[in-house]
């Protein structure tokens, strides 16, 4: 049986990728942010996952407004880096965990989800940046990926409760998978940001810190929120945080927050991460 080794939540702000492209990691603006990810990189290097399931949103790159998928699932063998308008970034393409992806496609459809099933699709910063934050800039990515796209751009966006259900289904799919892979789940996006309107630049450091502290021990609070509450609390683009609920619901009820990190602003965004392990797993390892 495959093993769920942990769940990670992380920002995917494009400016982080740009900072890496320009070698700005050690500038005063960026050093505290990147330093906070050093333990996360160590953690994942030790954990050696085989598959990373990454929940993220496309930002008007792979999908235009002509056809907006509420949920999409990648089933490709390989995913290229998309040109978002600034030229294609010089990072390796991603290998897909295609067998697991199709298994998940089956589980989703059988479990009453309605994904757009994508065999050919390119990936934007929403997934690139989390991979870079956790795996650095290797010649080749040390994991295969399963990308899950959530519409957070055009309303209606899915509800927090639907995200939770998706996480529960993901967990069932991991448990019914015959492979031996070590699997990590990433929920990405957020934290506070609003890029449009007179409230642009809205920052809610208190709410961001509460989120990072509570997403492990008290996720029901956020699962029961309305979409309005996410927009109001975290800003119109910060509502991306609903995607962390997929990761959280895939984990056990009892988790240990192994680490977390917060820095604001990264560009215009509250930024940070959390790493969760199932308590059962932690106990097992200690024994």
């Amino acid at each position, binding site marked *: 049986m495959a093993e769920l080794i942990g769940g990670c939540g992380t920002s995917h702000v494009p*400016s982080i990728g740009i900072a890496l492209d320009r070698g700005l990691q050690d500038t005063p603006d960026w050093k505290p942010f990147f330093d906070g990810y050093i333990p996360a990189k160590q953690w994942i290097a030790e954990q050696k996952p085989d598959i990373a399931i990454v929940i993220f949103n496309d*930002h*008007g*790159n792979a999908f*235009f*407004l002509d056809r907006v998928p509420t949920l999409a699932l990648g089933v490709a063998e390989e995913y290229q880096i*998309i*040109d*978002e*308008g*600034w*030229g294609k970034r010089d990072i390796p393409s991603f290998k897909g965990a295609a067998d697991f992806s199709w298994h998940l496609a089956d589980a989703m459809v059988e479990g009453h989800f309605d994904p757009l099933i994508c065999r050919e699709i390119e990936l934007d910063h929403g997934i690139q940046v989390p991979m870079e934050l956790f795996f650095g800039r290797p010649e080749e990515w040390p994991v295969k990926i399963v990308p899950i796209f959530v519409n957070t*751009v*055009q*309303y*209606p*966006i899915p*509800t927090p409760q639907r995200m939770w259900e998706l996480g529960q289904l993901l967990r069932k799919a991991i448990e019914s998978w015959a492979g031996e892979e070590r699997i990590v789940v990433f929920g990405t996006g957020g934290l506070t940001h*609003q*890029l*449009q*309107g*007179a*409230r*642009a*630049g*809205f*920052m809610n*450091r208190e709410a961001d810190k509460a989120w990072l502290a509570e997403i492990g021990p008290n996720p029901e609070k956020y699962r*029961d*929120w*309305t*979409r*309005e*509450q996410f*927009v*109001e609390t975290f*800003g*119109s*683009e910060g509502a991306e945080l609903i995607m962390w609920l997929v990761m959280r619901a895939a984990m056990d009820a009892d988790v240990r927050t192994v680490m977390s990190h917060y820095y*604001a*602003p990264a*560009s*215009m965004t509250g930024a940070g991460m959390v790493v969760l392990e199932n308590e059962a797993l932690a106990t097992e390892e200690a024994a």
Partner: protein
Amino acid sequence: MSASKPDTLASDGAKTPIPDTPLFDRAGSHRGYEMNKMAMSLVSAANREAFAADEEAYLDRYKLSPEQRAAVLARDWQEMVRLGGNIFYILKISALDPMPVTAIGAAQVGMEHEDFLVERLGKERKNG
């Protein structure tokens, strides 16, 4: 806001307004469709070159309203958003003459960039 409040944030974002927070809903998506399509096209290097070479001619390929056209030419970000531009699309226009997204944010609010960085984002003032 209580959790028991029904979730009504749907395709008509205007129905449940959150102050100063435009949601990219059906109306906005409809209003901004051609402008966002034009902006989306700039993900192709060839199109970026064509845009850079002759903006007016490039815009002729799309059915922008006169207001949208003027807003794009003037790089009036606030106006683009008002006319249905979605940040993720129109941002691609900014790649042609690079500017930080925080400057676009400042324009949304009608603030000086430096003031925006300090007052909204909580950064330290550099040019006091």
